[in-house]
């Protein structure tokens, strides 16, 4: 389906300008020596220095990383087991459960956040606790698990149904079947789910905003508080750093993927000779 499509290509190019121009402006002005967001007055790295000295931002970064790592790991464990359980259920049980599983994915973030805060606040009154890191972590695990399940389930369905029986015929107990045969087979799906969950957690603002309370702050919440106060080139500096990290990660992932692809292609080419 290769046709000349000049109009479409021009529109695509314009779309990329639209998508990237604000980001580039943001990055450029992180090196601006004055506080202005619009007038260039010389190159400086001061904002980066100040950023690393800002204890509020640094502690919020710590909170974000901690909650994201813990939530992603917990979600990967609970989600993988749940996916295996769902896989073995009859359809009339699985379908409604998967539907409930999808609720946090489909629902608007604000509703997930608000409903959880209602639960935490009312349970907190009864049991006696306040919004804080614990509630933040629970909220993150809750919206992370569906992504793990969504990336593990397809891997389970790709498995040969006979694999379970074969393992058990060869003397594996049910639990051995799971951790010796099934888990290694679906590992790529688990890792994928873990990564998605982690990025979802790092990126989240709305749900954290409603469930973290006033004592804990994630990086997104810190950025929000800063944007409300408006001018601070430190925000630009954070953006630049985050953009660079994401860019490097994406390049690494893509290079790895294409290398694996090439290896797989090579193998496929050599196969007939071996046979």
């Amino acid at each position, binding site marked *: 389906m290769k046709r000349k499509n000049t109009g479409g290509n021009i529109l695509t190019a314009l779309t990329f300008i639209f998508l990237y121009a604000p980001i580039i402006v943001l990055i450029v002005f992180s090196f601006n020596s004055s506080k202005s967001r619009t007038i260039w007055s010389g190159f400086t790295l001061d904002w980066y220095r100040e950023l690393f000295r800002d204890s509020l931002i640094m502690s919020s970064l710590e909170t974000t990383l901690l909650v994201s790592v813990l939530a992603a790991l917990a979600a990967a464990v609970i989600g993988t087991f749940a996916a295996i359980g769902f896989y073995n259920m009859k359809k009339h049980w699985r379908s409604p459960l998967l539907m409930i599983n999808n609720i946090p994915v489909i629902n608007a973030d604000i509703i997930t956040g608000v409903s959880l805060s209602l639960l935490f606040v009312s349970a907190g009154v009864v049991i006696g606790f306040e919004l804080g890191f614990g509630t933040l972590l629970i909220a993150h695990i809750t919206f992370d698990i569906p992504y793990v399940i969504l990336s593990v389930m397809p891997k389970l369905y790709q498995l040969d149904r006979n694999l379970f029986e074969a393992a058990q015929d060869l003397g594996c107990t049910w639990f051995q079947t799971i951790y010796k045969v099934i888990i290694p087979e679906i590992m790529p799906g688990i890792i994928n789910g873990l990564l998605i969950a982690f990025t979802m957690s790092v990126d989240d603002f709305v749900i954290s905003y409603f469930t973290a309370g006033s004592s804990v702050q994630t990086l997104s919440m810190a950025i929000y508080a800063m944007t409300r106060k408006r001018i601070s080139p430190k925000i630009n500096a954070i953006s630049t750093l985050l953009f660079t990290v*994401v860019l490097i990660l994406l390049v690494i992932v893509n290079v790895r993927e294409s290398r694996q692809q090439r290896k797989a292609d090579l193998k496929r080419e050599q196969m007939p000779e071996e046979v």
Partner: protein
Amino acid sequence: MSKTSLSSWSESKPLRILRSARAFLERYRKQSFAFPYILWMALFVVIPIILIVVYAFTSAGNGFTLKNFSGIISYAPVFGRSLWLALVATAVCLLIGYPVALAISRMNIKTQRIVLMLVMLPMWINFLLRTYAWMSLLENTGLINRALAALGVFDLINSLHANDLNYTPITHFQLINTNGAVVLGMVYNYLPFMILPIQSVIVKIDPFVIEAAEDLGADRGTVFRKVIFPLSLSGVISGITMVFVPAVSTFVISKLLSNGTVMLLGDLIEMQFTGSAYNPHLGSAISLIMMAIVVICMSIMNKFGEGEEQAVMM
């Protein structure tokens, strides 16, 4: 029944429960892996939503009431504005996103990979920062107004009105703090959600189907109308949902790009739960209506085709 047998029955009760629980787990061993998560979902997905419903139909202190819903009527303009701006943003996303998705799916595989990565890259940047970036562009003294001033646009407009005595010369266009700015913020943030699902569907269309249509005498327009577009409908539908749902519920974009002058549903809910107007009952009622909007949106989507959310996830 004698007294002794009754006491022995009550003694063995926990044991019996334990035994029957064990028998249950034994029987559903394969399924039991999901039990912790089912409990988790019940606690943190189902109960919170039930709480929203309960709060929506009660008021502080008193029991059942519909007051919260009748109270919403005074916010009708907010509902109208929210729906309208989200619809406009979704329409703009579709008008830009569809041709772009089509153009991307016509590129060769290698370019397609890179271009798709470039579409996704902004999504990986915190959306607060993406929205913040527009603040410095749209401000009255922002880059866009500065560029227009440098080009002499305002001088030109002012000189056109030179003979009008009541005319006050302008120095900038009001860009920020307008409905347009909020729509722009929505389009900017959610455009990839439109491009990616559509592209993922178009790229899967069998080229032979298109060839067949051409062989049967269809011109390019007919091929698009009768073959490509109908086959890409599931992508369009999921794109629409994925743009509309976050757009109708946002409060950050309107906060940042309108500084509170354009109030949306999300702002209204946020105010009820965190702001000075703390009223979770009214907030729950609004949330419930928003959920209904989302559910209606989803059921329309399900009618047209299965979702492609996963296509966008990585």
